[in-house]
């Protein structure tokens, strides 16, 4: 028991031990701890969380250097440990190396190549895109990764899906507003419809191609068919899923398929879906403003067939099966040929076969006699 009684005679010993411990702490931690801290987000934010932090570039533009800690924490990178220096590779400590960017755009265009390190596939796809071509032609406003995805506060680009058209709409203002009033855009806006196409559904994501080329044109019906030939999806909305297969059999469709297979780059104007239905402004055929509404159909046809008169639109059977109700004349012509052709074939075949038998038998008999 006596051993548990503290020894009041030696107060200096605990002081010495405490001193040694403290000194040893000073000895070990500060050197390594300060180096680690410099490369962490925390370290950077110690200055950059100041909302007033900014600098002026040689172009006269002021560049805000403020980073919101909360937003950074909710972005995709920071929580999984991808911090500032992953992209800002040239900045390891303070003071930073001097900035040699003339403009804010310069800075963005220089930094976005950092995305390539971790996202090489999407990066190289982007290099094949219409946007990269525009940049190569000298348009520095052509979008780079960060223009669509953001730089510091990156979130999944399609959550929610309604975000996508808004992102593209930052630059493509007119297309965005037209799209929003279309049957597709409206359904997205009103009910966050999961099936309607957004920009990227048709144009692709990273390797977005020029939609004005002949190649894009001949492939366009297949693009629409991606959804409109999908029986399951179309039945949800009471739409026919046969529109594409019937179009493929029509005059326009066969023509386009031949050009698609043979001469995909040669300019050709046989109608594809968008020629009649519109592109970003597609409306329900029942909508009085729709280009394929019976009221407007003739004007739409006249775009390619200037001599067409009011009776012309009755020729259109491209999306309908031949039926007695809708196209009685065509129905009877079809009925006539589907019964007439085999009938002629059989009658001729049987008659000639009988003739042949009788002729051969008679000749054989005569020669045997």
């Amino acid at each position, binding site marked *: 028991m006596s051993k548990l009684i503290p020894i009041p005679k030696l107060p200096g010993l605990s002081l010495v031990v405490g001193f040694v411990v403290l000194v040893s702490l000073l000895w070990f931690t500060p050197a390594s701890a300060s180096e680690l801290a410099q490369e962490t987000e925390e370290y950077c934010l110690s200055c950059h969380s100041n909302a007033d932090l900014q600098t002026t570039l040689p172009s006269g533009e002021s560049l805000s250097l403020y980073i919101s800690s909360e937003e950074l924490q909710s972005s995709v990178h920071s929580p999984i440990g991808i911090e500032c220096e992953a992209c800002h590779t040239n900045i390891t400590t303070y003071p930073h190396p001097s900035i040699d960017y003339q403009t804010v755009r310069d800075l963005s265009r220089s930094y976005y190549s950092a995305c390539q390190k971790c996202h090489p596939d999407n990066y190289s796809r982007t290099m094949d895109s219409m946007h990269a071509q525009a940049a190569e032609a000298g348009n520095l406003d052509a979008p780079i990764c960060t223009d669509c995805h953001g730089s510091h506060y990156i979130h999944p680009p399609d959550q929610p899906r309604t975000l996508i058209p808004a992102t593209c709409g930052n630059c493509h203002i007119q297309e965005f507003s037209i799209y929003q009033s279309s049957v597709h855009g409206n359904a997205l806006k009103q009910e966050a419809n999961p099936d309607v196409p957004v920009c990227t559904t048709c144009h692709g994501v990273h390797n977005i191609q020029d939609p004005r080329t002949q190649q894009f044109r001949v492939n366009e019906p297949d693009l629409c068919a991606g959804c409109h030939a999908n029986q399951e999806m179309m039945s949800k909305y009471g739409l026919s899923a046969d529109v594409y297969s019937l179009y493929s059999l029509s*005059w326009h469709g*066969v023509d386009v*398929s*031949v050009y698609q*297979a*043979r*001469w995909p780059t*040669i300019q050709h104007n046989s109608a594809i879906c968008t020629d009649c239905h519109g592109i970003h402004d597609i409306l329900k055929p029942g909508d009085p403003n729709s280009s394929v509404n019976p009221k407007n159909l003739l004007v739409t046809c006249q775009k390619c*067939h200037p*001599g*067409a*008169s009011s*009776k*012309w*639109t*009755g*020729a*259109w*059977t491209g999306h309908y099966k031949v039926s007695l109700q809708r*196209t009685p*004349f*065509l129905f009877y*012509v*079809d009925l006539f*040929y589907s019964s*007439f*052709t085999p009938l*002629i*074939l059989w009658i*001729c*075949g049987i*008659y*000639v076969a*009988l*003739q*042949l*038998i*009788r*002729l051969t038998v008679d000749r054989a008999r005569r020669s045997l006699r």
Partner: protein
Amino acid sequence: MSQSKSDPSSSTSRVKLLRTFPRFSVSQRWEHAILLLSIATLLLTGLPQKYRTAVWSQTIISSLDRLATIQLIHRVAALVLTGLVLYHLGKAIFLMARRKLPGDMLPTLQDVKDAWNMLLYLIYFKKQKPAFGKYNFEQKVTYWFLFFAIGIMLISGYIMWFPEVITRILPGGAIPAAIMAHSTEAIVTTIFIVLWHFYHVHFERLNLSIFSGWLNEEDMRTYHDLEYNQLVREPRSNESSGDMKL
């Protein structure tokens, strides 16, 4: 009027007389030749267009220039065929107006009976083929089948050629109907010509009377018994040989 031709190869001791009977006028023979050429051209230039998605067609239509050429040839041949049809109809109207159109080609009840008897003969219910006049029912079927087939082909062809003009008069449904009729009728007609016509003029016997204009006595007796008997009794003059005098 029947002509006599001596066989030059036979010796003087045995002269073989080959009696021939006029069957087709020069005009009719030319009509057939032009018809044959224009239909063959239309078929050869039309099939690659109908089957434009097929590989064999694409070796023919290998470029857009070729397509344009093929379409041009098709349309020129169509115009030739149109001219021929107009000539043929015009001639028929001309002869009709003069009450000189021979009724040989018109279908009669006798043809139905002939067809029935022929069928019985073919299935060994009868020993003898029915006796025929100038045109038997097989030849009438050929003529009238092609008459309507060409009519359908021409009408539907012009609808496809001038769709915008045609639909000022006809309802728009005429266009898809014409497209369907034109391509299907072409195939039916081809099958018909190959099976029916080629059998009768090439296989059953080689009948070149549409090119030469005459038939020999043996063929006349075998295939046109009634006409033969009639001609032997009262030979017809050239004026009434079934066509205009040229």
